[in-house]
């Protein structure tokens, strides 16, 4: 079969129970209907995952998938996804990662890896083009993610790109990540699924190529896209300069930055830290993912204070918040170090920081005592914060409770702490307070994997665009905004480019890129792609409904619904979720319980 332009062309099926593998052709029909990446993963998991299975049992399936633009010249074409049934939330989860792992997987000839079963002893999956080896990995078990990758490369060759878990994943810590070449498949606990399968690492090396349907057109579209990225004030200016924290001051000023577990107020030193301080104090070099002209990643080194000499690839905006404002902490070195430790142990730095903020509030309210923790943990205590990161990573002491996420921690500690356990469907909230941009409330409540800012990011339209066009504190248009964002973001996450490219590249530009690359008719217009995005989201909703999600789960932490925002432009506001949610179900074509209607499924070709 001739290779489909833009695709590597093959699926690798791995059965860890049988220690066997099989390689099959990538079906053209799958490509046309689901694009790649997230779309592929949705189709595979919906069709093949046994409903109601225990996420940490051998029944769970782990899908790694790339998109057509992954590994190509298309700007930011570096992304791959890992999708599983999440052990943290019990529902769908796809975690998206940049860097070089996805491009290398395509060079090895695979668009998708489907991993089933469970090994009895630790193993590693070594992929060298179409040569696949499932090898014993006892020597790597117990190692942190950096050492594991280093050892593996020492044994098999420096050219391999490695995705692996650390001690957290091995211990099935529910917020464990998968780390790949300095980047993370962060959210939702896919690291614990690898741990349960006893798969320590996936290493890939490939020499293959990707065909281009219309070479001249693809080159031209890229030239335009690169120019757009270069001249855009975000992607060509603030983001390369300040990293992902480029929006920090703006988010803070507009009341969107959650402080001390979304309580609001101030904390010592908080007024002095921002993206400028971060750049002055920490940043050393700009680093880019594969094919990325933006280079928002930073190599940072701590130059003063108690954490002098510590380094990190980062810190990213989300972690700058989760280990900063969320913990009432302004000690920059500790923020960098906490992110480093998250990568070292292989844990999600958003969930970890969020959970530490929760613990600190519990501590200050007397719900968690010094005796239980083994130390004091008031807001702003960066030493306590680092200790808790370690406890989560090593699954020791209170870390055994906290590492299971705030939903379970609140159930354990009780005494009303559920009211300020900041999660949706079990996934911890990221760095935007939806009381200051109501669309984010709907985005969190309806995101396919729980509280996530990367399924719809209404902050752009509500706050960053011209003031007053869409009022962040009104509910009007929010349902439509969230739906359109969700549908397009699912397209972007299926194409294999980074969401940050969309700050500069419009729908048409990404469409033209993928159409020139693949020549596939169903990718020829924005309308067609949005249809696919909507179809993916509905398929995932069906997956989640099958796993028991109802309207009651499409909600927000009580704090956001009952406690008014403390200060700034959003002072006095709570999230009026009900009316936005009802309108959302309406524009989605879902019934009152949030289930896709028969007519809607027929329209989308899902029935």
């Amino acid at each position, binding site marked *: 079969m001739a290779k489909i332009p833009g695709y590597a062309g093959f699926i690798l099926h791995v059965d860890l129970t049988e220690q066997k593998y099989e390689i099959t052709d990538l079906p053209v029909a799958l490509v046309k209907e689901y694009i790649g990446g997230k779309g592929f993963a949705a189709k595979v998991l919906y069709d093949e995952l046994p409903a109601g299975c225990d996420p940490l049992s051998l029944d769970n399936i782990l899908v790694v998938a790339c998109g057509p633009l992954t*590994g190509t010249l298309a700007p930011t074409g570096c992304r791959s996804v890992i999708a599983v049934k999440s052990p943290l939330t019990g529902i769908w989860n796809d975690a998206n990662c940049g860097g070089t792992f996805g491009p290398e997987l395509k060079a090895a000839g695979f668009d998708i890896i489907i991993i089933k079963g469970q090994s009895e002893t630790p193993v590693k999956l070594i992929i060298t083009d179409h040569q696949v080896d499932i090898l014993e990995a006892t020597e790597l078990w117990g190692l942190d993610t950096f050492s594991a990758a280093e050892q593996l490369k020492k044994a098999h060759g420096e050219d391999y790109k490695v995705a692996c878990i650390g001690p957290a994943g091995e211990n099935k810590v529910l917020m464990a990540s998968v780390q790949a070449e300095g980047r993370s498949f962060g959210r939702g606990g896919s690291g614990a699924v690898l741990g349960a399968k006893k798969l320590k690492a996936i290493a890939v090396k490939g020499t293959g*190529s990707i065909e281009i349907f219309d070479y001249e057109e693809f080159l031209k579209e890229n030239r335009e896209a690169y120019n757009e990225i270069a001249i855009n004030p975000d992607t060509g200016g603030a983001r390369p300069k300040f990293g992902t924290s480029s929006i920090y001051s703006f988010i803070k000023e507009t009341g969107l930055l959650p402080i001390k577990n979304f309580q609001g107020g101030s904390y010592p030193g908080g007024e002095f830290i921002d993206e400028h301080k971060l750049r002055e104090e920490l940043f050393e070099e700009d680093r880019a993912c594969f094919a990325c002209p933006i280079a928002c990643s930073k190599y940072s080194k701590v130059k003063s204070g108690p954490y002098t000499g510590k380094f990190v690839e980062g810190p990213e905006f989300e972690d700058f918040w989760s280990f900063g404002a969320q913990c009432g902490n302004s000690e920059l070195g500790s923020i960098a170090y906490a992110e480093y430790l998250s990568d070292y142990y292989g844990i999600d730095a958003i969930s970890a920081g969020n959970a530490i903020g929760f613990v600190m509030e519990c501590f200050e309210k007397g719900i968690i005592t010094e005796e239980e923790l083994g130390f004091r943990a008031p807001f702003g205590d960066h030493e306590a914060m680092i200790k808790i990161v370690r406890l989560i990573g090593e699954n020791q002491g209170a870390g055994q409770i906290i590492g299971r996420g705030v939903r379970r921690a609140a159930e354990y500690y009780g005494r009303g702490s559920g009211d300020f356990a900041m999660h949706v469907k079990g996934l911890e909230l990221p760095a935007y307070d939806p009381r200051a941009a109501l669309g984010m409330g709907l985005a969190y409540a309806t995101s396919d994997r729980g509280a996530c800012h990367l399924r719809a990011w209404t902050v752009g339209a509500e706050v960053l665009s011209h003031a007053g066009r869409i009022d962040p504190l009104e509910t009007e248009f929010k349902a439509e905004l969230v739906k359109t964002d969700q549908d397009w973001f699912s397209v972007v996450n299926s194409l294999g480019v980074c969401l940050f490219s969309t700050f500069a590249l419009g729908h048409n530009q990404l469409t033209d890129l993928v159409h020139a690359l693949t020549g596939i008719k169903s990718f020829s217009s924005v309308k067609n792609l949005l249809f696919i995005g909507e179809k993916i989201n509905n398929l995932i909703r069906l997956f989640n409904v099958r796993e028991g999600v109802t309207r009651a789960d499409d909600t927000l932490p009580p704090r956001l619904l009952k406690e008014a925002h403390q200060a700034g432009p959003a002072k006095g506001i709570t999230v009026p979720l009900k009316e936005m949610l009802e309108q959302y179900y309406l524009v989605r074509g879902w019934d009152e319980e949030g289930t896709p209607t028969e007519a809607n499924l027929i329209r989308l070709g899902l029935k």
Partner: protein
Amino acid sequence: MINYERKDCTGCRICEIVCSMEHFKKIHTKRALIKYDDDWPRVGNVKFCRQCPQRACMQACPEEALYLSPEGVVQLDRKRCVACLLCSAACPFGELPTDGEYPLFCDTCSGQFQCVTWCPRKALKRSR
């Protein structure tokens, strides 16, 4: 010749991608004539023939496998090359990339210098 400023490089590998596209009309980064070696967490280094005027490689080659094209570009005659890599050892800019065996020499994309054109940070630049 082409100059490379490591301090401006971000390790994006766009040079590898466009180089392979120019030569093979598809994306085949592993066969690019320019190679980026990462040094995580720091930015790494790009290995490539700069087409410099010194041409220490030509003097070092014991097989006379290197010759100048009519445009003045150093090129390799594969039939003569014995893959001893003495050219690479003599290169004043460090190692040359290889295809696993033979050294790889930049051909300037027939004067188009695609890596220079596409380098988003101008870490690669042309100079006289």
